[in-house]
């Protein structure tokens, strides 16, 4: 039986190899007209350049912040929806999914209207007298975090929900009966049991946030450069494939490292 279950991987793996892994690896290490040596040389230069280092740090930092915010907001939504018996739960779930359908370019306009100096938030703050002049929100890290949160929060909700929906509510009850209030029940029973789902959700969000281009560019502006905007510049403006590959390699390693660490941590947490 063991041999046979392993066979289930084969069709998917074959497609993955042919339609993704082999072409991508070839492209990453040896883009058109460029040798792997040049890619690595460029990679070396990037990793030692303070300007590029700052971009890596910013990308990692914003990626992590967005992930934390998305899980921090999305998991409670998923939890409440998965435990609710209300008819509204279905509607709310659908509402959490709609935003995914809006093209990111269009969404950005919404943020312009909310965050721009003439927009809703600065004007509201002015009206309330909380600030003297409209604060600069657009083209700041905050704008990127908000924009990326909007894009990836639905993903966090949906991915967490699918795990939470499978956690037996009877165990919540058992914990409550043993004196755990809702909060502690949540942390000691619900969270660990849905942990693998949360790790998946976090990985999806982090990978998405690190590789997203449009939102960080349009909301973060030219000053908040991230790896993805750099990659875009290299591949679409300067057509500098060595730099593009080097940037893509850094992004790939970053996401792999973070997702690997998080699932390791989760596994450690589950077995301790």
């Amino acid at each position, binding site marked *: 039986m063991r041999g046979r279950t392993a066979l289930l991987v084969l069709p998917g793996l074959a497609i993955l190899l042919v339609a993704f892994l082999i072409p991508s690896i070839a492209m990453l290490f040896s883009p058109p007209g460029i040798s792997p040596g040049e890619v690595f040389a460029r990679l070396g230069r990037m990793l030692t350049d303070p300007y590029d280092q700052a971009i890596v740090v910013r990308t990692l930092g914003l990626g992590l912040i967005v992930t934390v915010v998305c899980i921090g907001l999305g998991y409670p939504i998923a939890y409440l929806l998965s435990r609710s018996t209300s008819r509204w739960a279905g509607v709310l779930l659908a509402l959490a999914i709609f935003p995914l359908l809006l093209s990111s370019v269009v969404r950005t306009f919404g943020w312009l209207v909310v965050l721009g100096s003439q927009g809703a938030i600065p004007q509201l703050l002015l009206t309330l007298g909380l600030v003297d002049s409209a604060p600069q929100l657009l083209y700041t890290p905050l704008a990127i975090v908000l924009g990326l949160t909007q894009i990836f929060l639905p993903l966090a909700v949906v991915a967490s929900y699918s795990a939470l929906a499978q956690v037996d509510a009877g165990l919540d009850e058992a914990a409550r*009966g043993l004196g755990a209030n809702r909060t502690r029940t949540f942390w000691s029973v619900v969270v*660990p049991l849905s942990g693998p789902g949360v790790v998946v959700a976090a990985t999806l969000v982090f990978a998405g946030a690190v590789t997203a281009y449009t939102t960080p560019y349009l909301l973060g502006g030219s000053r908040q450069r991230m790896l993805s905007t750099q990659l875009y510049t290299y591949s679409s403006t300067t057509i500098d494939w060595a730099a593009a590959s080097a940037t893509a390699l850094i992004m790939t390693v970053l996401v792999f490292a973070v997702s690997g660490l998080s699932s390791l941590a989760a596994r450690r947490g589950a077995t301790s």
Partner: protein
Amino acid sequence: MTHAARFHGVSQVFGDFTAVDNIDLDIPDGKLTTLLGPSGCGKTTSLRMLAGYLAPTRGTISIAGVDSTRTPPERRNLGMVFQSYALFPHMSVADNVGFGLKMRRVPAADRARRVTESLELVGLAHLSASKPKKLSGGQQQRVALARAIAIRPKLLLLDEPLSNLDARLRIQMRAEIRRIQAETGLAVVLVTHDQDEALEMSDEMVLMKDGRIQQQGTPQAVFPAPANRFVAEFLGYENFLTDAGGATTTIRPEHLALSVSERTPAAETGAVLPGVVLDVAYRGVDVLVTVASADVSGARVELLADLRAESAPDLTPGADVWVHVPATHLVPLAAD
């Protein structure tokens, strides 16, 4: 008498089905109360309302004299063994048992000691590091028991806590529950389907049927005097006879005697009915004999006699026998 808990006119309606129907129930303090009744009669539902998992559709529940109908479970200080155990699959046996203590912020050292104590009590100290998935059914059930006991609650709710244990272990566990109860003076509500268990352990028995309470009292009061046919049947009164006045009376199989001639054994006050043996079932120390007979009203009845194997006459199906029905053990029944 103080009450550990009290149901006042409590009902639980699921959709259009009434699982618990307007019950008033007092759980005496410091006593062990058993809840008995057929499968689906509302025992678990009642416990779940008492524990706070299910809000009553109607009525109120007070705990220790305070209306607690809306109190969340974690503030009721109850221990509960769920019929389905509900062990935490991601925690070791020890962590399961220690969970309630942790919630009560018992210091780690104390906690470890009490966990070990509770696990020793159920004979599972050697499995404290295992995950519940790896335990046998009975072992899981005992972990659930240890988990509920470890917190030393004011009120312990046990939903068939011993159903998957063998007789010896059951007897041992019953004794432990009784001992803990005596030592700590807590109140216990025990759901069981085992009459012996109920009779042996209860201070108070509550019999339920279709969501309603049929009878409540000490075993000594209830057992010899079932209030109605349902209770009688449930307690193992197998024989129902209509007396000369048309009222129904009942008698336990153990109280019937059989003889091949009418005279022996010495006739007591009561009826002696002729009959034909239908079935003889060997059960170790005793023998169950089913006899087709007719009661004093002339109606055909099937009677079941439970005889000690060594003193039973040698009977085979088809044999004619006399059934002796001692008047002292005949119990008159109210209509259902």
